[in-house]
Structure formats: C-alpha cells, structure tokens
C-alpha cells in the first residue's frame, strides 16, 4: 500500500499528488514512469513521474482526469492509499551534451515536462520553455517552470493568457531566431507532438514522450506497441521517449482510441455510483 501524503488541485481537472514510495523515489530519473492500480477492481494505468524526492522517499504524480481511473485517483485525498505502485519503468532520458534546448509542454503534458526542464537546468543548459493550454485556468506550473527556464513562453488557445495561439507558433519563431538549438523536447497531446515534429528540421533532434495503452509496463503485453522508423517498438521498455521525426503518430492516435466505448461505459457507471 502506498500512502498519499499531499494532494493539490493545480487546475480544473488537473491534480497533483505526492505518494510515499521510497524504493521508486530512490531510482527515478527524468523520463521514467510508474504503473499504479488504485484497488482490487481497478485498471493498471501508466503515469509519468513529475518529480521525486529521494530523501523524503516520495514521488509526485500530476494527472488530468480523462477517464474513470484518473477521476477515481483524483477523488483520493491525502491519507488515502493506492494499493499497487510499480516502477520506475521505461528508459531514462539522455540529457547529456545539450547546450541549448527548447522544451514544449501541452496541457497536462507540461507537468511531465517539468522534471526534464529542471534536470537540464541543473546540468547548466540554456532552456527555452513553451507551455500551452486551452485557457488561462488550465495553465499549470508557471512559477516552477519560470524558475528553471531561461525564457518561458505561454500560449492559450483562446487568448485568455499569454500569446493567443498554439505552442507551434512560438516554436516556429524560435527556430528562426535561434540557430543553435541542440534539442527539442515535446510532451503533450499526440496532435501537438506530431505538429512539433513536423516543424523541427531533420537536423534538430526532436524527442517526444508517448502515452500508450499498456497493461504490465515491463514488455510483456505488447499493447503499447508503436511504429518508430518503420519498426515496431514497445513504449514501456524501448520508450516512452522516441525520436519524433520517426514516430507514426496517426497509428498512436488510432490505438489510443480502441477502448473509448468501454471507457464511457464505466465512467457513466462511476458517476451514477458517486451521485
């Protein structure tokens, strides 16, 4: 059993929890994820680790309530327990040798971007961060990102905060004004990562972090398979970070949609029970 130490609402539908998990905290690096199962009847879901504190033995998870399991996770409070938590899973990101980096977060993906920006910052890289949200209310981690970024750009779809438009608008500008970018990292909705990977030139390495459906997270089920550079890869063990110029994003979008009907079904049931 894994105890929730702290809980905070970051934005409507976006929650942050800090969980006691000393073994996992000890070994987590930027890019790693965990799999959790809230209780006996629940699904196993992957969540990227948003932060970790090795001394206190805790990990931080930030998630958007998008379905039954994340809504149920969001309903837990400090003091509640998660039955199963396993990790760290996936490959850690290789952050070596980058002097100037553009980091892009879209929606709740910004939460997963934060530990990467922080790690680059600690390594002394120059970081231009772009975060995008639908509206002002949904902009998260602004203060935290500002502390560890050299420049922070904010966009909102409706123009209620920052620049009116998409993260790719800023990215296009930056690619013109900065000729010395070593790496672009993008985490967020698949269409956003696809758009980013289309804009960045082939000579600028572009890393995206995929969120595939998976069961075990250790290479056993193959449910998280994606096509990268024409080859089938498993997101859980070969990823979750991949070269955005090589990823078949359309296939991922299709695969992510497979259980939509079942998801709606249990969400409806869940709301009936809760109301």
């Amino acid at each position, binding site marked *: 059993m894994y105890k929730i130490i702290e809980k905070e609402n970051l934005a409507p539908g976006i929650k942050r929890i800090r969980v006691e998990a000393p073994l996992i905290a000890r070994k987590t690096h930027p890019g790693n994820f965990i799999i959790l199962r809230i209780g006996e009847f629940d*699904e196993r879901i992957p969540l990227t680790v948003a932060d970790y504190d090795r001394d206190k033995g805790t990990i931080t998870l930030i998630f958007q309530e998008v379905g039954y399991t994340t809504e149920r996770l969001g309903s837990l409070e400090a003091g509640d327990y998660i039955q199963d938590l396993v990790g760290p899973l996936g490959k850690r990101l290789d952050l070596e040798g980058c002097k100037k980096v553009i980091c892009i977060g879209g929606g709740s993906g910004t939460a997963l971007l934060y530990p990467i920006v922080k790690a680059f910052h600690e390594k002394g890289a120059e970081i231009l961060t772009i975060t995008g949200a639908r509206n002002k209310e949904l902009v998260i981690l602004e203060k935290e990102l500002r502390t560890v970024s050299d420049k922070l750009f904010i966009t909102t779809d409706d123009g209620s905060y920052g620049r009116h438009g998409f993260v790719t608008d800023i990215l296009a500008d930056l690619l013109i004004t900065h000729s010395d970018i070593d790496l672009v990292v993008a985490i967020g909705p698949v269409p956003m990562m696809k758009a980013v990977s289309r804009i960045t030139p082939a000579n600028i390495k572009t890393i995206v972090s995929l969120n595939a459906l998976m069961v075990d997270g*250790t290479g056993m089920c193959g*449910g998280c398979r994606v096509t990268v550079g024409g080859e089938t890869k498993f997101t859980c063990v070969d990823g979750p970070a991949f070269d955005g110029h090589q990823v078949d994003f359309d296939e991922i979008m299709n695969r992510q949609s497979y259980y939509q009907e079942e998801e709606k079904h249990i969400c409806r049931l869940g709301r009936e029970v809760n109301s």
Partner: protein
Amino acid sequence: MALQKEKTPVKSQDPELRIKNFDEVCLGYNKSEAVQEAGRCLQCKDPACVKGCPVEVPIPDFIKAIIDDDLDRAAHIIKSKNNLPAICGRVCPQEEQCEKLCIMGKKYEPVAIGRLERFVGDYALKKAGVSDSRPAKIMKKKEKIAVVGSGPAGLTAAADLAKEGYQVTLFEALHAAGGVLRYGIPEFRLPENILDQEVSEIQKLGVEIKLNVVIGKTITIDELFAEGYSTVFIGTGAGLPKFLGLPGENLNGIYSANEFLTRVNLMKAYKFPEYKTPVRIGKKVAVIGGGNVAMDSARTAVRLGAEEVSIIYRRSKEELPARDEEIEHAEEEGVIFRLSNNPTAFHGENGRVKSIECVKMKLEGIDSSGRPVPVPVAGSNWSLEVDNVIIAIGQTPNPLLKYNTPGLKTNLNGGIIVDENLSASIPGVYAGGDIVTGAATVIKAMGAGKKAAQSIIKYLEEK
C-alpha cells in the same frame, strides 16, 4: 479383478454449458474413482514413469498410498519433490512425460498419473485449509536468498530453499504472485483459488513475497548483493510476445496472446465492468498459432461470446504443439481449425482489423527441430473476415533484467547463459526456466527451479 485397459474416466463440464462460463472444465476424480485408477498401477520395481518426471516424483509410492487409503502419506510423498501438485496435476503435459513411459501404456492406456496427482494435490490443499499444515520447525540459516520472478521456477526454488532453512525473498513485478500461472493460464484450466492456496502454502514455509518490485529497475542485482543477499535466482520467464512482422499488425483489434490473456486472467476483464479493465472481442476471432497458449486464447474468446473462433496454424494437425487434451477441448467447444494456413497480411477499415489474408501451406522435408517445413502454395491466397486477431506464436525471454545488469551473459535469443549447475556469468547468480530455455512448460521450469535450489545449497555450504 479383470485388468482395466482404459483410464478411469474423469467428469468434465458439458461443452454446451462450459462455453458460457469460466469455471473449471475438468472436475477431477472423487475418492472412489481415484482408488479405482490407482489400482491400475503395476507398482513397477524400476518405475519408468519417474524418469519421465522433471522433478522425479516417486509416482508408484504415492499411488500405493492412495490404494492404502492414506492420503496424508500420498500428499507427503508428492510434496517431498513437487511443491505445487494441485497445479501440476492440472497443467503438466503428462502424456509426454510420466504417462508416456508408463508400462501399462505400452499395451493399454497408461495410468492417469496426472489426474491422481491432482486428486492428492487438492486433498492436501483442502486439508491445509482446515488445519495448520506448517512443516516441523526448520532450523533457520542466516543466509538471505533473493528469488526473482514468482512463476513456476521461482516458486519451486523459493520453496526448496525455504525448506532448507534459508531466508528467502521472492520478488514479483506484477501485483499478484504466480507469473504465467496467474496472467497466462485461464481460470477454466487452473482456478485462481488453487493458485492462491498453493502460493500461500509456499509462504507458510517462510518465503516472503514482495510484489510490485521489478528487479533491474526498482532494485538491481548489485543492490541485492549490497543489501546482504548471498545468492540470486532468476526465474523471470519468457515474457516478451513475438509478433509476425506483417503489414497491418498494429491495427486495433489485434492482440498478443499475452495481452489478451493478461487482461482476462490477471485483470479479470471477463468480469467487466465490475473489474475495470476492458477487453474487446467481436463475433469473429482468429488465433494465430497452434500451442497451448493458442488453445487457451481461442477457448477464452469462445467464453467471451465470440461466435466463430478459428485457429490458424501453418502445419498440419499432427504437428500442433498443443496438448491433445487442449485440442480436444477446443474442438468440443466449437473452435475451427484452419490448418496448413499462414497469415500474410492484416487488412483494416477505420483503423480496425477487418480481415486476414492467408496463404495455404504444404509440408516439405524436415527442419533442424525435426518438424516438417511448411512452404507456401503459390497462388493459394485467401481472405478471412475477422473482428479480432490474437497472435500466439510464442514468447522470448524478457530482456528487462539483461538491459540493466552489466555482466549478465545472454545468448542470441536473449536467454541467460548458464552452466550445468544453472550458474550464470555473475558469481552467486543462478537462472532457470523459460528465461534460460525460451518458452517451455510449467513442469520443466519447476525442474529447473529445483535444480538451481540444489546448486545454491551446495554453493552456500561450500562457501
């Protein structure tokens, strides 16, 4: 009494009924049936059957105990060699092992050793449920041993080492112990409560089970040694599903057998929406492959309501690697065998698989494994409409530990390289089961677990 030439029949659930539930198919012997079948054993002085058993259960001795109506003794005899009799009695391929060598079998049907083992195994579990079956006090030894993976190899090694008094910790990556017995073998062949009870028997020996720990990720092998473990046994199995590498394989509706069975067995998707993990099976399902995992997948699909379930296998019925019993059960349940066919592509519509393109195969010559070589028949392509495809063409060793353990030598197939004592390339590290051999059987993995335990005991005594 006249010689009974055939095995005493065992009751099973009627196919018409069982395709609508996940309850166990084979109902097992009752006591009088068991005694009747035990009476067929010739009690050979030099029993051939024992030589066919990877863990060398003294078969005639436990059968004699059944005849003597001393089931405690029968259980004790089996458990001296086999820590999981209720499981082995259900899933061992006895027809290729003990029963294959049974002298009765030369002329008539062999003694139904597997059914008798199950009968005794179930008796032992029932007894354990009502009385404290804790073994006599074991002299505790100070050495700590880590066992990685709680499948058949790990459970066996852990039990044998605990019986010797070592402090054994069993690490499991998933949220429940049992490995393939938990995520792979369906409820209708190995009920979960049998597995739960067998695991709890092993815990009673003093084995501590730590769930949700991925060795190589959460804790490395080096860290296990640093934490004071004297030796490590790796039994992480053949967890990585093989795919065909054909066009369209990543369309929605195409599962690996591992994913399909894990959703249904470990996550209980067959009880959706009570359990929240979904599995989607349409009307027409094709299972690619001809082994036990393919049969389990096909029979599971039938129970989930599929109307037409086909097995597509590239060789003929003779070569089907599945156990005869599994093939018979699948046939009884209406599974269609489309033999001598091989898929060449998957076609989809709106991102979902719609049909499989197949080519007919003929057999020519013999390959290095002694099996006929399937060759495509030119121009024989045909198409099968499907809603789902389950790919059950085998598994390879899980490379997760290898990736994160420098110095651990593996072969080209990803199997851990061991010597004749199952010692791996790192001192104090042993490995056995599917992680060494590639996908095999439960009992072979148990045999390896047993052998590794003996090697570890010797290693620690000489240290």
